[in-house]
């Protein structure tokens, strides 16, 4: 019996130790995915915890037709989408501004010209991904961070593979443009030797 099967068995029997092992194994992976999707550490931590709570409580719903990691990832993505939807409704109903934008407005960084060394040093790939629309961000994160193929992404998101392919193509194009505008690629190539 491999470790995943042991964890599954333990979870089905309600063992706390199995829940601990599950979090040790996939916790950081789920949290990092949520951080990339939500752009907010606090929300990401909430989503990651909720993902494991739901997984432990609903383990009987896991049919075993895919990996446990994929099932956790699907739950996390579903929760992230819910968060984003609620945030969008809140902004719409209560006329609130984007929290990240508000923070940036209150604590502006000193202006630097785009493409300069300082600008590149300050720029992170994570931030650039965060600037993409949510539907693009989702496929980019799954493709690059989770190293998933388009067919797997399509299965996970429940969307046709063609849709995912074209979305990924557009998302990649936008990301590449952002990075090239900032000279990111050039800078990293120099740093990498």
């Amino acid at each position, binding site marked *: 019996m491999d470790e995943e099967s042991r964890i599954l068995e333990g979870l089905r029997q309600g063992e*706390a130790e199995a829940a601990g092992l599950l*979090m040790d194994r996939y916790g950081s992976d789920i*949290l990092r995915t949520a951080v990339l999707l939500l752009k907010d550490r606090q929300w990401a931590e909430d989503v990651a915890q909720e993902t494991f709570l739901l997984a432990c409580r609903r383990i009987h719903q896991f049919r075993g037709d895919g990996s446990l990691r994929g099932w956790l990832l699907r739950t996390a993505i579903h929760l992230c989408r819910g968060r984003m939807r609620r945030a969008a409704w809140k902004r719409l109903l209560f006329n609130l501004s984007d929290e990240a934008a508000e923070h940036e407005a209150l604590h502006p960084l000193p202006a630097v010209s785009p493409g300069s060394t300082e600008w590149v040093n300050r720029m992170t790939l994570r931030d650039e991904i965060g600037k993409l629309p949510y539907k693009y961000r989702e496929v980019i994160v799954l493709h690059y961070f989770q190293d998933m193929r388009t067919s797997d992404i399509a299965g996970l998101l429940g969307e046709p593979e063609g849709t995912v392919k074209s979305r990924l193509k557009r998302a990649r194009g936008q990301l590449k443009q952002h990075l090239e505008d900032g000279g990111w690629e050039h800078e990293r190539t120099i740093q990498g030797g």
Partner: protein
Amino acid sequence: MNERFKEDEQIRNELRTELEHVVFSGKLKQNVLESLEPGRSFWKKEIVIPLPVIAFALILIAAIPVAGWRHAVSLQGETAIAERPNEEKIVVSAAGVFYESQLKREGDR
């Protein structure tokens, strides 16, 4: 194709490096384990009330006084009609002006 693969790998590596410090801490793990404890006190449990349920409850709370008020108004109207005294008919004759009931009483005698 090879160039794109190189770019993709570069992005993957960069993302991994940037997110290295983001870890699912022991505190987060403890929170989850505490929430899973079977004998957890009711007051410590986190409950989620779906939005439609909240909306329904609010509508119900608002509807009760409105319905009560409407019912009270309709009852008041009925009572007013019920309590209205029988209007006296006035009979005008050559002998004068009389109430109908007065003439009836006189006739009975």
